[in-house]
């Protein structure tokens, strides 16, 4: 009786220890992978205020494309352009009269903070004046933002999803 009880406890102990080890391993995997791969969302202002402390981190930054600054060499596929600061949260964008208005204001306001982006790859068609750019990459020592390959995402504020009928015929 005594013996079987003890072996029962021992039996359970090894499962509990094994389970805890596995749990610890999974937590370790998640924590270490999160630390190594966290990507910080930032606006241009936030990035500028933190300055060089961000060098080397994975960053995702959004802003308005300044059309005159776009330079592209099709032979080397070198693309550089500036983005101007736009507020990060949706409420502020709504307050500013919607995304298109906010982007327009950002580009036409010369006092806005700007950031130079360098990207190596084909120039996307959507890269135009006043487009919203979301760029993943990292900040260099030189204050220039180097985008990852495939790190350039562009959105034009005209969402065709929400468009209303264009060719309307009245009645049924």
């Amino acid at each position, binding site marked *: 009786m005594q013996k079987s009880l003890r072996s*029962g406890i021992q*039996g359970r102990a*090894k*499962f509990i220890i*094994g*389970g805890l080890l*596995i749990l610890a*391993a*999974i937590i370790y*995997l*998640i924590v*270490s*992978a*999160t630390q*190594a*791969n*966290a*990507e*910080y*969302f930032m606006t241009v202002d936030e990035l500028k205020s933190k300055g060089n402390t961000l060098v080397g981190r*994975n960053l*995702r930054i959004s802003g308005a494309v300044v059309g005159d600054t776009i330079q592209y060499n*099709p*032979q080397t*596929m070198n693309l550089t352009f500036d983005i101007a600061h736009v507020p*990060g949260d949706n409420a502020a964008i709504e307050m500013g009269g919607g995304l298109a208005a906010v982007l327009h204001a950002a580009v036409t306001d010369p006092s806005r903070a700007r950031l130079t982006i360098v990207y190596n*790859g*084909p*120039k*996307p*068609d959507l890269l135009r004046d006043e487009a919203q750019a979301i760029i*993943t990459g990292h900040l260099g020592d030189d204050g220039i933002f180097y985008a990852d*390959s*495939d790190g350039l995402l562009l959105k034009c504020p005209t*969402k*065709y*999803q*929400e*468009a*209303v*009928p*264009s*060719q*309307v*015929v*009245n*009645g*049924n």
Partner: protein
Amino acid sequence: MLAQFGFGVFALTFLLALFSVGAAVVGYFDKSDRWVEAARRAMLLTFPLVTLAALTLAYLLVTGHYELQYVYSVTSNDMPFYLKITALWGGQAGSLVLWSWLMSAFVSAVTLRKWERDRELLPWVIVVTSITLAFFLSLSIFYENPFARWWQTTAGDFVPRMFAPAGAIPVSPADGQGLNPLLRHPGMILHPPMLYLGFVAFVIPFAFAIAALVTGRSDDRWIRLTRRWTLVAWLFLSLGLVLGMRWAYDVLGWGGYWAWDPVEIAALMPWLTGTAFLHSVMIQEKRGMFKQWNMLLIILTYSLVIFGTFLTRSGVLSSVHAFSESAIGPMFFVFIGITFVTSVALLIYRWKDLRAEVEMKSLFSREALFLLNNLMFMGVLIVCFWGVIFPLISELVTGQKVTVGPPFYQRANAPLFGALMALMGIAPLSAWGKSTYKTLGRALWKPSIPTAILPLVLALLGVHNWIALVGFTLVAFVIFVTLFEFWRGVRSRQKKQNENFPIALWRLAGHNRRRYGGYLIHLSMVVMAIGILGIELYQTTTQKTLAVGEDIQIAGYTLRYDSLAQFPYTDGRIVTRAVMSVFQNGKLLGELYPRYDYYPASGQPMTIAGVRSTLADDLYVVLVNWENVSEAQAPFKVYHNPLVNWLWIGNLMFIFGFLVAAWPEREEEKREGKI
């Protein structure tokens, strides 16, 4: 008129679903079989009704009733017939109709039987399925109405409404915007219905589980009754996932198949719990263990199914799949919350009744290894869940929005997937109950010998990436173990029954379909792993702007840019197509036609890669969509994807293995009265 008819049918079905919830509850508590029977018959009616509404919508789509906002947003005059049909699930409102339609089909299939033997479960199966159906119908009726039409208000705005706003006049556009070009692909015809079939079919085992909890049945009857539903749900969910991968590979033009997009993860999560469930129910059937765990798994699977639909349909997370933001988000949240809390409360209430019949003894027994397998699936689930909600949590806690990208998932999941592969190799050789490392070792050493040779051979061949070495070794291990199992079974049959090899193999698998079908599915998984290891570890890419006659090199191939053509296609899109010749060692292998299509109606471009696919590798060429593309300069991006074809081959093997595992066994069917 037709739109009002469709809407009316929907409303009627909604009321009918509510009625059967009430009737089933009354029938259960009053012990009145007449009420239960009424509820059953009401549920039987939902399928023809929702079919009628869905057909109405399909008819409106095909005949171009652009006065309806949904029709306007997903079809246009120049779309071919089959695409107008698939437009049914090309948008938010329509995909909810598809959900309801499949749900009603399954509910009717279940209630088609009278369930004399398990009558006590029936009312609660009806309650769970009716509530789920009513929830989805209510979304269509109150929030995402596919039958809403355009009105012009007195202020001059165009609004979609079911009923006329005051003073508004109806408007009818002559043409629609057309389906999102990305969805005009054969993979897209099947991907959403497959995924939804998988999602919806998991509701059935969940409903039986809840019925078992409410009625206090602690045996494995609910599992046996729904085994086939679970298998079917799992098959379609798996196929839906793989079709989605194939679609991404063919259409999105970034050289990959899986981006750890939140919505992809949303579809993967119920697959993870479903797969864990599929394994752990075997333990309950064989040993009477894991009862509470199985309940928890099916509850989680159901919640994740709804959560998956919610993520795709609410616009909470930005992704390629997300439709524009919608009001249905909070509704989903409330529904998931209520169903999850209620189910878990029920489970806690019955917790003691669901205790294991025997205690687990050995760390090396098959049940212990199954438990380990389940823990690994849960580990992957936690990694995925964490990755999806991490941005929300970090924003709440620190105010700083932080996300984790694909490298997070790869890094955290790779060891877990590796452990799962190792378990796939070890578990089939373990024994139930008492099993020590010695008995397990005796079973393992034979297949371990050829496995041990493989990494040495690979290293000599120049493979020095240790992840690749471990990965391919595990693949080989599973293959050897599985073949060894087949061989062992066939040999013993040959000796005992004196059969020749093919007959012995046929009968072995035929008499043990679940087991040997399962082994084939394991094989298919590691074959897929070959493709995944190949593309994940050895993909190379290069890009260059070329003039006609110039070439670009990658992985021993030379691609020469020969010509460029631009022409309109019958459905209105403008095609820009390049011709490239592929050479290897100076020998011409063939031509590739990377192109991009521009859809003027929607302003959407679509990139179609030129792909040369062999068992060894894929050459994947993208003509980059750029306004100044010409014969003098065109930017190309080239990917070399080693072994990726094995991913698709593995999937075909998977279907075969599934058919072996799930093919009805006639005698057993009669004996157990399964559905």
